[in-house]
């Protein structure tokens, strides 16, 4: 196939024109799986953007006061009301799992199989903790605070529907990621990426690039949370 030496190609803007103008593949040094994951993530970005933009539209166009998230999501610890405590912990847990994922990718490329699997497992457990806390948050809001998609005691009725829609969609992404992380941790530990064992679903050989692709998805989930944290909880 292609015989290019990537270090000799022009860089920066010239490289951009060169790569797109050449009659080979445009994304040099990018495995197809990674390019496909990136394209999926761009489309997913648009979905989450639509949610957050419609949140903005609802909030800016309602004449009823919007519930103050800082108070709605406050947690009482030893008799003291701490605003957004659970959300802050969830944020730190998700960032930590993103960090362990980045380290797992690094160990994967260095072919340190067991360390890679271990860090994938840490990442999965972090994601699991996040989903668990989210389930706790949801049940608290539904059973104790009486927040419903169509009404809530704090203010504008749209608040509930946006909360359940946005955090629910994000939580679904996390849950899917956790499932795949456990699968990949097992595959890595078993040595599938060293022996070229075929996947049970794709029946194709894979290698440690798969860990990086998994990582892109996981970092994206973290990235979306950064925006949800800012726009839904803090704004």
């Amino acid at each position, binding site marked *: *196939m292609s015989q290019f030496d990537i270090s000799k190609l022009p860089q920066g803007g010239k490289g951009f024109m060169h*790569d797109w103008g050449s009659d080979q593949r445009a994304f040099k040094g990018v495995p197809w799986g990674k390019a496909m994951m990136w394209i999926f993530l761009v489309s997913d970005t648009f979905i989450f953007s639509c949610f957050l933009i*419609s949140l*903005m539209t609802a909030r800016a166009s309602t004449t009823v006061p919007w519930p103050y998230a800082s108070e709605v999501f406050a947690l009482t610890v030893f008799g003291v009301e701490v605003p957004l405590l659970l959300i802050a912990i969830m944020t730190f847990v998700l960032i930590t799992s*993103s960090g362990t*994922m*980045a380290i797992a990718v*690094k160990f994967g490329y260095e072919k340190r199989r067991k360390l890679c699997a271990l860090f994938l497992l840490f990442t999965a457990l972090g994601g699991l903790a996040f989903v668990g806390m989210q389930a706790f948050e949801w049940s608290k809001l539904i059973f104790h605070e009486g927040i419903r998609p169509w009404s809530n005691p704090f203010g504008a009725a749209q608040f509930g529907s946006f909360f359940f829609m946005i955090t629910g969609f994000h939580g679904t992404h996390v849950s899917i990621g956790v499932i795949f992380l456990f699968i990949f941790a097992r595959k890595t530990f078993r040595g599938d990426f060293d022996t070229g064992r075929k996947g049970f679903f794709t029946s194709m050989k894979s290698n440690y690039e798969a860990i990086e692709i998994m990582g892109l998805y996981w970092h*994206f989930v973290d990235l979306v949370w950064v925006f949800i944290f800012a726009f839904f909880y803090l704004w």
Partner: protein
Amino acid sequence: MEQNKKQEVHTHKIGIYLWIWGLLFVFSFFSYMVDYLDFQGLLRWTLIVTFMLTKAGLIMAIFMHLYWERWAIVNVLLWPMTLIGVFITIMVSESHYTFFTRLFYFVVGS
């Protein structure tokens, strides 16, 4: 081809990931403090957006390796995001209009 690809792959020292991890912690802590110290108004929004964009930039550049990718793919990924900016602008003016008409008809009646 397979062999080539293996050699090109960057691996970085573990330190850089730990650093970014630490920075993300710090910035998350800062944005939490914005709420905890109860900053309001323009200061609140500026700080929230600044910390948010810094965190997003760090995650994309280092954790998602965009900093080391070639511009061909970086441009394909980032330019579509300008459309989101356009969409936000449209919807801001749309929601102001809706707000105005609601106020108008709630007060004046139809």
